[in-house]
């Protein structure tokens, strides 16, 4: 190895092992480089060959790791603990926001790609590859984003915080991991709301582990983002090109899709059949009770972990109002995954909640409060009664209470046990 290569290798190693803020570290390396130059010049002037002179000068300086450790310690002051803590907060916020945006972009592009490819496969091969988009996938995406952000922030923290503390990265890993995992646990349990399902909960629960993995694998040298640049652009290009191509392929079968959808609607729109589990409709053409739903077809849309209160007011439209008694407002579960057809879960055999309705002349009113199921996006709302023959019948048109179950992991776990 030539003398300048020996010197550069020594200084590179010194730079890697030196845990100082960038400016301080660069100046320390420049000073050592100046020392080597002066030492070699002096030796060469006294007749030592340059290659030997650099070797001797490097040997006198000692191992670069030890010199770096001693230099790092020489810069350390008590106030640097506070400086490191401030840097940790700043890096967490800045990197966290960047990672959040980047992760959502990646996840959204990936999700679009999966959906489009699934559509294309379905059109071309007749195989349904992607079904039940919500709430399964809607709940999964925030979990994935949370895991990515936790990992990226964990990796980004170690080296700069160690430099600010003027300590070896191995010395700051444990404190960073301890504080960060505690925050990640708090965020995973209470800080992030999503539409939950077991996969989402699993991914969110793994956030602290992803943070810890990021902290553990962070090493001085090239930053993770720098390394990502090599494959990020091609990955995005492939994702976008795949999405466009998939859309084009999916468009080939769009005519068949329209016909199929039309037929589906014809099948779904049959209240007597779809809601037979609750009871037959007393009069399909002129329902005895007309509900006043206010704004929106199905009343106000609600979200949250619960409890949810559903209130319905209506008017008895039939002249023989006395023919019905024991009016009840009933909440029945909709199918898991949303309303892409009937509003009643075909497996349902009993209501989620039920309450008697009060009558005041021709006006009727019912209200009930219940804890919604975690995997439903709405509930079928029925007005039931006994007719003159004592049979159970439905008095109002099919109605639904739209509900988006959103909550934290703790809410979700609590709901499971309820």
């Amino acid at each position, binding site marked *: 190895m030539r003398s300048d290569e020996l010197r550069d290798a020594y200084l590179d190693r010194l730079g890697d092992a030196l845990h100082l803020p960038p400016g301080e570290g660069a*100046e*320390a390396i*420049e*000073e*050592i*480089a*100046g*020392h080597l*130059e*002066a*030492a070699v010049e*002096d030796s060469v002037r006294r007749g030592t060959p340059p290659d030997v002179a650099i070797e001797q*000068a490097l040997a*006198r*300086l*000692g191992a670069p790791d*030890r*010199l770096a450790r*001693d*230099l790092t*310690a*020489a*810069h350390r*002051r008590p106030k640097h603990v506070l400086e490191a803590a401030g840097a940790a907060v700043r890096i967490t916020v800045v990197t966290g926001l960047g990672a959040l945006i980047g992760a959502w972009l990646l996840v959204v592009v990936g999700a679009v790609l999966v959906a489009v490819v699934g559509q294309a496969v379905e059109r071309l091969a007749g195989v349904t590859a992607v079904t039940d988009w919500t709430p399964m996938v809607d709940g999964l995406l925030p979990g994935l984003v949370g895991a990515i952000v936790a990992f990226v922030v964990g990796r980004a923290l170690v080296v700069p915080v160690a430099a600010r503390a003027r300590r070896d990265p191995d010395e700051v890993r444990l404190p960073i991991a301890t504080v960060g995992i505690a925050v990640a646990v708090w965020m995973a349990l209470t800080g992030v709301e999503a539409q939950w399902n077991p996969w989402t909960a699993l991914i969110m629960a793994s956030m602290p582990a992803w943070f810890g993995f990021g902290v553990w694998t962070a090493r001085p040298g090239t930053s993770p983002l720098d390394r990502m640049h090599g494959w990020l652009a091609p990955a995005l290009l492939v994702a976008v090109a795949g999405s466009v191509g998939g859309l084009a392929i999916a468009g080939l079968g769009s005519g068949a899709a329209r016909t199929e959808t039309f037929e589906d609607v014809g099948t779904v729109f049959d209240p007597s059949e779809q809601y037979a589990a609750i009871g037959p409709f007393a009069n399909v053409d002129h329902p005895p009770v007309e509900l006043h739903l206010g704004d929106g077809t199905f009343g106000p849309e609600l979200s949250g972990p619960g409890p949810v209160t559903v209130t319905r007011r209506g008017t008895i439209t039939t002249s023989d109002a006395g023919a019905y008694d024991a009016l009840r407002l009933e909440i029945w579960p909709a199918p898991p995954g949303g309303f892409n057809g009937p509003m009643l879960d075909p497996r349902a055999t009993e209501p989620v909640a039920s309450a008697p309705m009060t009558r005041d002349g021709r006006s009727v009113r019912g209200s009930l409060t219940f804890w919604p199921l975690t995997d439903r996006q709405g509930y079928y709302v029925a007005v039931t009664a006994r007719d003159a023959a004592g049979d159970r019948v439905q008095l109002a048109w099919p109605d639904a209470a739209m509900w988006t179950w959103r909550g934290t992991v703790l809410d979700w776990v609590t709901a499971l046990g309820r």
Partner: protein
Amino acid sequence: LSPLPRSQLLKGTTDLLVLAVLEHDRLHGYEILQRIRGNGAALSLSEGALYPTLHRLERDGAISGRWETSDSGPRRRSYGLTDAGRGRLAQSRAAWEEFVRDVGAVAGRTEDGIDAVG
């Protein structure tokens, strides 16, 4: 029994040596080494120990460093004594002289060269 190694005798005196050679001149690292070595073969200060010492003394405010550019080569960092450093040098000198006197008294020779034991 082997005599006490000189490196052991030097231990703890690095700060004093550096402060002493900077008392009258601003010098860069290599010059500091040369000055120390020029005063005797016993003072073979490790080059690897010099720069951490310089950085620590600068951190503590005993010396001040500044970059100096030259037409012939890259810039170099030179160091000079601060007022706090002069005070520290005086204290270190006094402590060292007292140490030498006390060790000399026990080891058999005073600073005046008079055998105190026999």
